[in-house]
């Protein structure tokens, strides 16, 4: 194997690999990338047995072949090269020589045969999707994904195609839930929905962020997801299991409704949460005539209060919430105002754009 490639191209490939490779693993080779020189160019593969990314890049290939190397160290090297181009050459015993301008590295590699094989999902029915929409949907749900590994069903986002060319994505950690529904037409050939794991989703987000407007395709087959765009293929294993019946925890309409200026609400929550007890983010939200109050008290520090003008005429109420949960939602809300619906101290609060429930967040109260 020997090829010459633009350092920026190799950097891009290795950057894509960083999120996938596993450093803390019993299989050291999973910390490596597989570099393969074909006649037409070079591919860099990263795979953690769950998620695989194959990145294709133009290169002047002198000799085809393959080798695996530490994803981290080679990335560090490529980021600090003196020249715009770099040559990689496999030597005896899987050593790799990396040369750029005056700099030379001789790196320990591993035989390519030892690298685990990615699942081939070429039969997945691919649907062309708008990258920007998919990206928006990920951003509006990822924060609600559970990180509790004992609730693995909730460690991902539920991806559920609806009939009218729309797709719904739902995430919940058991305390709050976020749902977004957007136009994503095409037949995914799915019965019900699938659960996309958190890590894969975050990698997908990174890849979409590179160029949100690029043409891309998404498909599902055999409990895997396949994502493709020019020069890139990603496969990931889906979470196997039944996503909870989320519909029944979304209240139809709250007793008390109020329109709240988003930015003021967001800033107020951040401010007041500074005084929440034990950094718990526990705050009280109070509604009284024409005012929304945010209060917190910390036995060691003191107390804090902020008030927002809102048009409210109902009965006064005070409910405890984790401010973090509300901040997460407001942070990805696009409208200037947000509709906030409340029941009682034990009922969920609901946030959505005024008159539009296509992005709805449900947040359970805290006992305070």
């Amino acid at each position, binding site marked *: 194997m020997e090829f010459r490639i633009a350092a920026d191209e190799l950097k891009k490939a290795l950057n894509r690999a960083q999120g996938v490779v596993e450093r803390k693993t019993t299989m050291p080779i999973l910390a490596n990338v597989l570099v393969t020189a074909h006649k037409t160019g070079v591919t860099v593969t990263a795979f953690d047995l769950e998620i695989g990314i194959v990145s294709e890049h133009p290169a002047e290939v002198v000799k085809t072949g393959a080798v695996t190397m530490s994803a981290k160290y080679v990335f560090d090297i490529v980021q600090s090269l003196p020249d715009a181009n770099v040559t990689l050459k496999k030597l005896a015993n899987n050593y790799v020589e990396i040369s750029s301008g005056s700099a030379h590295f001789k790196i320990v590699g591993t035989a390519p045969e030892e690298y685990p094989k990615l699942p081939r999902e070429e039969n997945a029915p691919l649907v062309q999707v708008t990258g920007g929409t998919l990206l928006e949907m990920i951003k509006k749900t990822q924060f609600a994904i559970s990180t509790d590994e*004992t*609730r693995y069903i909730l460690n991902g986002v539920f991806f559920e195609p609806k009939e009218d060319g729309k797709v719904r994505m739902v995430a*919940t950690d*058991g*305390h*709050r*839930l976020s749902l977004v529904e957007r136009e994503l037409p095409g037949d995914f050939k799915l019965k019900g929905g699938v659960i996309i794991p958190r890590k894969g989703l975050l990698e997908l987000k990174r890849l979409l962020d590179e160029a949100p407007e690029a043409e891309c395709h998404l498909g599902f087959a055999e409990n895997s997801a396949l994502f493709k765009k020019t020069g890139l293929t990603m496969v990931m294993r889906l979470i196997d299991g039944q996503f*909870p019946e989320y519909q029944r*925890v979304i209240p139809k309409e709250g007793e008390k409704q109020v329109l709240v200026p988003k930015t003021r609400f967001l800033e107020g929550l951040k401010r007041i949460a500074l005084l929440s007890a034990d950094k*718990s983010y*526990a705050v009280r939200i109070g509604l009284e005539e024409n005012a929304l109050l945010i209060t917190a008290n910390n036995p060691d520090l003191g107390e804090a209060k902020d008030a927002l003008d809102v048009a409210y005429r109902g009965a006064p109420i005070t409910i*405890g919430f*984790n401010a973090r949960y509300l901040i997460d939602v407001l942070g990805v809300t696009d409208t200037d105002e947000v509709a906030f619906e409340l029941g009682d101290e*034990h009922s*969920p609060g609901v946030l959505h754009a005024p008159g539009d429930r296509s992005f709805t967040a*449900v947040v*359970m*109260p*805290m*006992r*305070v």
Partner: protein
Amino acid sequence: MRAIIHVDMDAFYASVEQRDNPELRGKPLIVGGDARRGVVVAASYEVRKYGVKSAMPMARALKLAPHAKVVRPRFAAYSEASEQVFGIFERYTPLVEPLSLDEAFLDVTASVGLFGAPGEMARRIRKEIAAETGLPSSAGLSSVKFVAKIASDLAKPNGQREVRPEETVGFLAGLPVGRLWGVGAKTEEALKRAGLERIGQIAEKDAAWMEMRWGASGRHLWELANGIDPRGVVPDREAKSVGAEDTFDEDLTGVEALSPHVHAQALRVGRRLRRAGIKGRVVQLKVKFSDFTLLTRRSTLPSATDDGQTLYRVVRELLEKTHEDRPVRLTGVSVQELGTGEGPQLGLFTEAPKRSDKLNAALDRIAERYGTKAVTTADIAGSDEPERPKPPRKPR
């Protein structure tokens, strides 16, 4: 001024045996192990006059009282009685500090308004213990912990004694210095050599002299001798784990032989958790083999529990993985990461109360009235004496 009651069961294990077997009542009774190798675990009052004491080698005890009846300890029965007794304490105050299976300090300062004077409360507690467990107990009352403990000891058997604050120094004065907390055999010897035999002699000394002679502990002894001891009753709420373990009379081999014991331990842990109103998420199985090698295996549950059956299912799995067909001397089940099971954050998918919660509540009520053997699982009921253990170190 604090009101502290020290309640101590009288010859606890022996009393349980005499209660359960009428033939032993009023007779010199030794609860203990093997006549050649064992030690006296408990001695009834009838045998104490021959000089038999706990922890004495059985061989010696039987030389002193050759006519004494001897029974093997049944620790399961003792822990059950202990659980009942502690349940009674908790009716009067949440501030209960257990010292062992059969004695505890109760801080009843705040309960006086509800139940009357401390002396009256102690009488009621002892009456309820007698009525509900059939066992005698004694109580000591004072504003100082160690004085209450001495008072209960002097009130035995089946009595109670109150030492009022103004009587404290006089009460202590005549007692040997060995009665003070922290005075062991060596210190006692040293104090005696200095001519201090009675607590009153220490109290009369100058505090500074005591401190010069014995250092900081000298001042401390002087304070104790004058009835000054600010230590409060520390309830066992902050326990890091709740557990039950038993050493078997004979080593057991095989999952099937061990599992009724582990099951009974898991149910015991469940009962203790429920009584304390807490739940735990990390379950640990402890196995000590006949060669004293110790093995512990733990498992984390998806959510905290106080259900003994859930605990059993987990420890049974651990037991199957752990077991190596070697003889086992002891097993223990414990639960860690304790909490109320629910944080302040409410859940979206909160379920209705589980059926097991209702069942446990009913079983707990039955156990409180008729004992834990009244309703139990078939494997435990069917196994011959499933719990023949050594004393648990301390109840939680």
